């Protein structure tokens, strides 16, 4: 059979196309939980209702209605929870588990999401495009909500977020702080997110009463969770007594020791002086020949705690 150059070109294109299809069809994660209605679609094709455990692929678009929420588990253990009335596209997720390397890019065009980072965001960082800014995530945990009166709300819960557009770039580094990225391109200074805003956002991501995240079978119970999870108390937020407290004790003792050193020296010296005075008296009595007449009882007034010279003469002159 004669192979023409056209045939070779056809074969080459076919191989490339097949590889490309193989790449795009790669399973990059799964649906971890889903409350209907939540739909997935690829390349603007027909959408289908997401099912728990279903594989997710690159370029997949996820849309929810007013009752729908879903959580996607990526291969690097990162998760994305898509809130009600939302639309998110998984632009790109590539992950090499052996090297813990990869890239992760998402885009939200409507609604709200929570992103909890995994290996990719820890190592290379992940990014989430919004209509008003791109959010770079190092770490971390982020909540994003579009359509707020001030623009897009971007809230940090852990790690570091870099919020950037053509005009501005702001870094959020304190958990609980957020920025607004407005349609005009302005990005606010980071501010402490009000509790009512975060509560409303969390509610938009949570299952409503009666929803079960698509779980087939019985719901998790407190009894099972208590048995399965460790019941050990967590570490305290405020550390108990430690070196700081011991240093207070030590500081007190240093003051006592400092004073006691001087007091002990004074007491010991006074003993010596007293003994020396007594000795001098005895010597003078001896010179006068009166020592033999002193009665032994009650005896000399030797003070309690008398001191015995060991060597030499007293170094301190009497006052």
């Amino acid at each position, binding site marked *: 059979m004669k192979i023409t150059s056209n045939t070779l070109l056809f074969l080459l294109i076919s191989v490339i196309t097949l590889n490309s299809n193989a790449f795009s069809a790669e399973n990059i994660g799964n649906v971890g939980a889903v409350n209907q209605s939540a739909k997935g679609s690829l390349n603007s094709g027909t959408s289908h209702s997401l099912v728990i455990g279903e594989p997710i692929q690159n370029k997949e678009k996820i849309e929810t209605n007013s009752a729908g929420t879903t959580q996607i*588990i990526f*291969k690097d*253990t*990162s*998760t994305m929870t898509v809130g009600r009335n939302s639309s998110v596209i998984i632009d790109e997720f590539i992950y090499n588990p052996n090297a813990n390397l990869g890239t992760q890019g998402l885009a939200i065009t409507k609604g709200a999401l929570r992103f*909890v980072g995994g290996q990719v965001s820890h190592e290379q960082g992940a990014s989430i495009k919004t209509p008003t800014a791109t959010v770079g995530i190092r770490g*971390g*945990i982020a909540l994003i909500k579009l359509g707020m009166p001030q623009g897009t709300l971007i809230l940090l*819960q*852990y790690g570091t977020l870099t919020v950037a557009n053509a005009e501005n770039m702001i870094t959020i*580094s304190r*958990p*609980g702080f957020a920025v607004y990225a407005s349609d005009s391109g302005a990005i606010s200074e*980071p501010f402490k*997110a009000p509790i009512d805003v975060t509560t409303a956002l969390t509610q938009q991501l949570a*299952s*409503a*009463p009666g*929803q*079960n*995240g698509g779980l087939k079978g019985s*719901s*998790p119970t*407190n009894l099972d969770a208590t048995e*399965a*999870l460790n*019941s050990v*108390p967590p*570490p*305290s*937020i*405020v550390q108990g*007594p*430690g*070196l700081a*407290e*011991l240093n207070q*004790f*030590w*500081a007190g003792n240093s*003051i*006592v*020791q400092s*004073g006691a*050193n001087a*007091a*002990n*020296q*004074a007491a*010991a*010296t006074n*003993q010596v002086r007293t003994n020396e005075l007594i000795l001098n008296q005895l010597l003078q009595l001896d010179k006068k020949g009166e020592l033999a007449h002193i009665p032994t009882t009650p005896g000399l007034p030797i003070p*309690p*705690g008398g*001191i*015995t*010279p060991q*060597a030499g003469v*007293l*170094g301190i002159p009497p006052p």
Partner: protein
Amino acid sequence: MFSQRSLREKLIKARAPRAIIYAILAMCINFFPANLRADTVTQKSELAANLSNNPSDLDKTYKFVSLSIETGDYEAAIGALERILMFNPRLSRAEMELGFLYARLGAFQAASEHLNSALNIGDLNTSQQTQIRAQLADIDKRNQKNRVFGRILAGLRAQTNANFFPSNGLFQIGGVGYGSTLRRQGDVNSYEMIQIAHDYDFENQNGDQLETRGTFYATQQFTIPTLNVSVFSASVGPRFGIPEAPVRGVSVKPYVAGIASTLGNQNYLNAGGAGLVTRIPITQTFSIDPGFEWRSLFVNRNNATNGGYVYSTISTIASGDAVTGYVSGIFQFSDRIKFEGRAAFTRANAFLAVQTSDQIDFQGMARIEFDPPNKEFGQRWTVAPFIRYTNLRFMEANPLVDPWIARHDDMWAGGILLDAPINEDIGFMGNIEYANNISNISNYKLDNFLVSLGPVVKF
């Protein structure tokens, strides 16, 4: 590296001294950060792959949460718990765990939300509620602009050498040695310590805040009232975050500090000064605080306990000024083991040359947390062995003691501290300590053993 099995084999074969070392290593390895254990990490990866395809397997999800917490991958645990909550939004045990995990990550607002949700659902058992309440007050404080933390310690302390008398009773007096018939005196004292800390949060994302600290400490000796001591110290200064620093979380704090004290119920040491300290988180588990400080000191030389005007020149603390360079550090070795350390150098320039000294101080403590004997207590207990070494070197000899030899001390101290919280407000603290001061002058060769125990009230 040692494995548990190899250590066990070595332990069986080893003779006494080595067996003790292997036993300690084996004990430590049980506390090792689990992320160093390859099998745990492998197990978690396998579970993650399995759960991705079958996310509704609750048993494996709980196992994954536990392993993630054990390996310090709190985000993975949070992702899994958020999923369980989608299956059952009223699962208070999951809310509780999420709250504690967010608290570990410093997301106190999220932590508070989840912990309050857990309590509000209302089906947690008593010990779980106690665990939440033990933390919730502190977590809620972290969300406030004005935060006040306080702790009151009180109790009894017994010492074998309360008057810090030389062990052998020997004194150098003017360079001549004498044996004193006076003796060391053991004594018991009551003590009280009140610590108050106030933070004013400027609520910017650098974490800038004004920090005010105050401590009052007092003792009342049962038999030697002349050694009663009271110390009041305070410091205030702003802490500024440095976002431009190459390491995240760096902050610097200039401060002013003061101290006033009494000894034997008479004024003794008064000091005031200023300093600068920097906090540098090297990693997520290791941070250091280097700093320096200058203080002007005034010692009341007429204090009666201090030996009177002449003998006050012998005391270690003297009027003048002191400059200290120091670095303290904290290393979170594992979930249950934390090391604290401090090294400091102080040059005390006294008005009298004979009281000018250099001091090097090293302190180290290992905080080992363990489960309380009763689950209802709700918080971990801590046993903390510590060690301290101080080198004190005077520049000149003191003629009242020895005109030819300048004092040079090496002090070693070691002990164990116990912190036993009973609930969110009350607990107990105990301390056993032995200190031995080795000096080139007999007057200062002494040791002291002390035991203290008392309640702690937190607010």
